[in-house]
């Protein structure tokens, strides 16, 4: 790696001040599983790397049935996977946190870093979107809150401005009858990047879906919120026809590229299949909750 300086601020104010002074020449280090791999490949040449893991707020999380889940930007997947309250209230979140990389990647990788890296194939972002998560950001102009669905603006780019950093993501408390799931397709069992990922959440009342959200990964320049699918799920009774319709909407909403991981027709087909399966799993979880 090229030479850079390292700072480990202990407060958010100090971190913002360091990032602002560097005027775009600094990178935030959370788990480092994307950042260090990129720097080794010569992608980016920051003058300063700001390690956020000594800022207590960013390493903390709070999970509560009434307040929801606030997840500091530096909390590794390993901590999420081992937490019984998150497992109980947000089992779908573990669909992502337990499949990103392998065990040793999960020891460092963070959901906040996954969001800020802004890969179209990020495994946790569609999941955050179907949980209606918001991103809490701070910077030289103060704090702001951005829905995760509006956070990414292109491959590797997002709404963060120079000097800003992600503090936490907040998932609202699950409503009665809530269930969610995230599924991805890869050609092996683990340790790979999504060919397609699909997240679905529902709020059930008996056999009726009061509200549904569908989000797709790796089929567009950013993780997609499929608004037409949400509209088609709202107020509908569960039926085979509904599954077929939602799968078709997902397939049509997907606008992927062909690359070494998959072709356009394969990815569109997978978007439909995975959305139907994730819908079933979300319904099953809603019924079990």
């Amino acid at each position, binding site marked *: *790696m*090229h*030479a*850079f*300086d*390292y700072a*480990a601020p202990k407060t958010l104010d100090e971190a913002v001040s360091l990032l602002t002074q560097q005027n775009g020449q600094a990178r935030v*280090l959370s788990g*480092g*599983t994307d950042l*260090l*791999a990129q*720097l*080794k*490949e010569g992608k980016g040449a920051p003058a300063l*790397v700001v*390690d956020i*893991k000594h800022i207590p707020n960013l390493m903390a999380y709070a999970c509560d049935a009434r307040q929801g889940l606030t997840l500091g930007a530096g909390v*590794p997947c*390993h901590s999420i996977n081992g937490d019984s309250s998150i497992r109980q209230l947000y089992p779908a979140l573990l669909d992502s946190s337990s499949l990103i*990389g*392998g*065990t*040793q*990647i999960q*020891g*460092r990788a963070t959901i906040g870093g996954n969001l800020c890296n802004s890969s179209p194939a990020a495994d946790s972002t569609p999941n955050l979107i179907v949980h209606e998560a918001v991103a809490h950001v701070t910077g030289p102009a103060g704090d702001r809150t951005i829905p995760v669905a509006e956070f990414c603006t292109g491959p590797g780019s997002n709404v963060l401005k120079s000097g800003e950093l992600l503090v936490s993501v907040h998932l609202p408390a699950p409503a009665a009858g809530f269930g969610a799931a995230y599924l991805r397709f890869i050609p092996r*069992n*683990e*340790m790979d990047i999504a060919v397609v990922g699909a997240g679905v959440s529902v709020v059930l009342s008996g056999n009726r879906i009061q509200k549904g959200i569908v989000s797709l990964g790796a089929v567009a320049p950013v993780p997609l919120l499929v608004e037409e699918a949400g509209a088609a799920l709202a107020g509908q009774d569960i039926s085979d026809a509904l599954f077929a319709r939602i799968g078709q909407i997902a397939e049509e909403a997907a606008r992927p590229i062909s690359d070494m991981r998959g072709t356009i027709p394969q990815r569109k087909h997978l978007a439909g299949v995975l959305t139907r399966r994730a819908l079933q799993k979300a319904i099953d979880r809603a019924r079990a909750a």
Partner: protein
Amino acid sequence: MSNKIVVNSTINGEPQVFLCEARQTALEVIRETLGLTGSKEGCGNGNCGACNIILDGVLVNSCLVLAPELEGRAVLTIEGVADTCAEADLHPIQQKYLEHAALQCGICTPGFIVSTKALLDENPNPTEGDVRLWLAGNLCRCTGYDKIVRAVLDSADAMSA
């Protein structure tokens, strides 16, 4: 020119102070500054697990940790694994890898043993599925993995006996 940073950490139970540059990885410092060459660099980008260490009880790729991040933290490398078990020269995991011939060229083996220790610390009685999933981030080109999986399962039995 970047400045040298003084880092205080605990390596295999012993307090250590070393100098590093910010751009150095934990793996570089462990191998080249501290002379602990058991941890290997395979891919250098988190795919192969040959550099795995246990950092404050958590399994990580040392090639994806910056050396200054080790400040105040406890590192266990392959060199320290045997000392975590007082009774014998080798840790039971190492002994079982030998008995099952769960290695050929040996480059991946330190990473596998460190990963196995982290697994059995967290889950003393894993199923075969648990073992294969946990070790998915460790690559071996020689063994075909089966002997490794058997060695891990046998280690679990030996250690819980």
